[in-house]
């Protein structure tokens, strides 16, 4: 068991943190939210500095890292609440690179910034297990996808669909006029769309197992965003209680306040272990659907409790949007629902309750 980052990974985290704190003031995030757009400037910087390529082999322009490096990158970007498709693009790109043979060209394009590929999975039935969107023999897609994050920003969609060969993943040029994105406002204030594919041209890039891997990877990487929301909310709350005084002493000196914060801290600590364990297991190819589902369920449950306790301890100060706390509240809850809610994930665990509990 080695639960800590390597020195190189620590350095990477520190570098990223410094870079993002300097380059992404929260005012910039607020602007994106108001203008309902993504932060294209930051995205260009992430590409240009090679950060986006960290989890990929150097042979295709990457930094020779893996899932843990992806985790570090997502964590730092999410701690700034930045409006960029970091989880979506990494989910698509890692799936393409590891589970869709022959996709290295498009992955290379993603890493050099000429392509932005995001997954499109859920449909009207809101299920990860069944999709009906159809691909005809010539690759024309017909049907509708919902809750597609950053669909309108993307150059391509990685779409789960059913073709003559069965279910699989299809790559679609999002600029094709047969692809129509209709924005839908969400709690999380990040761009999202309902997408209609009216005979859009596509190529089949992955089989059924790739479609399953896409969900597993998306779910695991979303957990990193949840972890970041939890940590950011906790850290801001601790800092606030240390300086805010009532009855002539800091809030942090009240036991009731300490104990709320301790519960937040316990969630953050157990979540960190579970998330990086999931990433490490994905890297070593030993992750199971149940493990990823347990992790997502656990974080999806913990995050609303943590961020709302943060609000409780901030009082009115945390309730106004001049304060940065709300970013992690709304992003946290939105991400708790994304890629499988706590209930959906527990259902996956419920299928195997007869298996012995893992305790070591």
């Amino acid at each position, binding site marked *: 068991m080695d639960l800590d*980052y390597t020195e190189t990974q620590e350095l990477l985290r520190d570098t990223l943190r410094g870079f993002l704190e300097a380059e992404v003031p929260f005012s910039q995030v607020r602007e994106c939210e108001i203008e309902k757009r993504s932060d294209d400037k930051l995205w260009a910087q992430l590409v240009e500095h090679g950060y986006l390529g960290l989890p990929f082999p150097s042979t295709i322009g990457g930094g020779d890292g893996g899932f843990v490096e992806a985790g570090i990158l997502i964590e730092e970007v999410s701690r700034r609440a930045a409006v960029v498709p970091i989880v979506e693009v990494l989910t698509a790109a890692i799936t393409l690179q590891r589970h869709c043979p022959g996709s290295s060209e498009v992955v290379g394009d993603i890493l050099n910034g000429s392509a932005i590929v995001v997954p499109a999975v859920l449909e009207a039935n809101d299920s990860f297990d069944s999709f009906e969107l159809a691909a005809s023999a010539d690759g024309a897609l017909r049907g509708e996808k919902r809750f597609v994050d950053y669909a309108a920003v993307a150059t391509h969609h990685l779409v789960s669909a059913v073709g003559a060969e069965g279910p699989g993943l299809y790559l679609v040029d999002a600029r094709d006029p047969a692809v129509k994105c209709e924005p839908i406002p969400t709690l999380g204030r990040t761009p999202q769309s309902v997408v209609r594919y009216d005979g859009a041209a596509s190529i089949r890039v992955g089989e059924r197992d790739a479609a399953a891997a896409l969900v597993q990877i998306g779910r695991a990487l979303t957990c990193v965003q949840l972890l970041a929301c939890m940590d950011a909310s906790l850290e801001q709350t601790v800092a606030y209680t240390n300086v805010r005084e009532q009855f002539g002493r800091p809030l942090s000196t009240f036991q009731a306040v300490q104990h709320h914060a301790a519960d937040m801290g316990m969630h953050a*600590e157990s979540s960190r*272990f579970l998330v990086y364990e999931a990433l490490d297991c994905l890297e070593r190819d030993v992750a199971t659907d149940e493990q990823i589902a347990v992790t997502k369920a656990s974080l999806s449950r913990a995050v609303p409790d943590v961020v709302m306790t943060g609000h409780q301890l901030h009082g009115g100060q945390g309730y106004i949007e001049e304060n940065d706390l709300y970013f992690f509240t709304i992003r946290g809850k939105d991400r708790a629902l994304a890629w499988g809610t706590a209930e959906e994930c527990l259902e996956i665990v419920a299928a195997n309750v007869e298996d012995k509990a893992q305790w070591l």
Partner: protein
Amino acid sequence: MEFCWQPEYLTFRDEVETFIHEWRTPELLKEQREREGAGGGPILTRYYEALQEKGWMKMCWPPDLGGEGRNPIYRFIMVETMEYWQMPYGNLTYTSVAPALALHGNDEQKKRFLPGIWDGDYTFAIGYSEPNAGTDLAALRTRAEKVDGGWIVQGQKIWTSLAAQSTHIWLAVRTDTEGPKHAGISLMIVETKTEGITIRPLPTLSGFVTYETFYDNVFIPDENLIGPLNGGWNIIMHALNHERVGLSPTGNLARNYDLLVDHLKNKAPEKLKDPVVRNRLAEMKMQLQRHRALAIRNAITIAQDDVSPGQASMAKISGSELRYRMTNTAMDLLGRAGALTDEAGDLAASDGRQQSTWRSSPILRFGGGTNEVQRSIIAARHLGMSR
């Protein structure tokens, strides 16, 4: 980062499991129940001898105290495995008194007491708490007055568990009433059969009997003072770091889960098909994983020779509270059968284990430093909240 156990630890776990299956007989379990973990019965004595022979009791002690200095992870693996199978692996005599003696006793004292402890001839009860000194232990008032050749002790202790089964009491007494209260405490060993000691049983909610002990003009000879006079507080507060690795195991909670599912599978298969029941079980598995995370995190920190009071407190809170929540849900799922005790025979689920664990859950929450104190430790020392 690598979230898996290195092969040497997995081999060791297998070795522990093999040993457990060799020894885990109904007769041993019966004796363990009857003697309430005190050791000393015929089967347990042989069992502890075998455990000694394996070298597992002291394997993580530093070599200069007679140990092998093995990585504390070995201890963690042993504790977790023993806990899963509910096998004894040493009570406070081994984990608290022996290390304190090895560290703070003089040569004569070590020679006099340690062999008896390791042979299982000596069992110690711990005499710290008093009716008015619980969480605020330094407020203890049991008084030791200096007389020729020793001390005369007057006072009262409470929660002196195993007092009736023990040969000795490891006693904290006030030897100075001036100055700060923690600086006037000394540690002494007193034989349980000494004149003037009265033991009164206090049956607890768990079925386990603890004791109140009264000291009326009890003489303790000079040679039984451990460590420096008025230096007892350090001894009480100090524990071998590695002993904290298994402070809040996942093993016994996982075993509760497995026994619950086994019972439902065999005795109530219809319930196990119920999606609501399955969802509750799934949630238990999730909670177990959260606790496992904190338990392993704490163990690894200790194995790295780091000290993180916050992580230890987290593991302690999480394990003790989950013990209540899990067994509470388990009893709900079992229905009225969940309330049956082992004496109900076949009707009882898993020998009544869910309800007995439920009953014993309070002590883990308030004992060993209340969870309220632990949460304040997390706030101050882990999160950096100012006090």
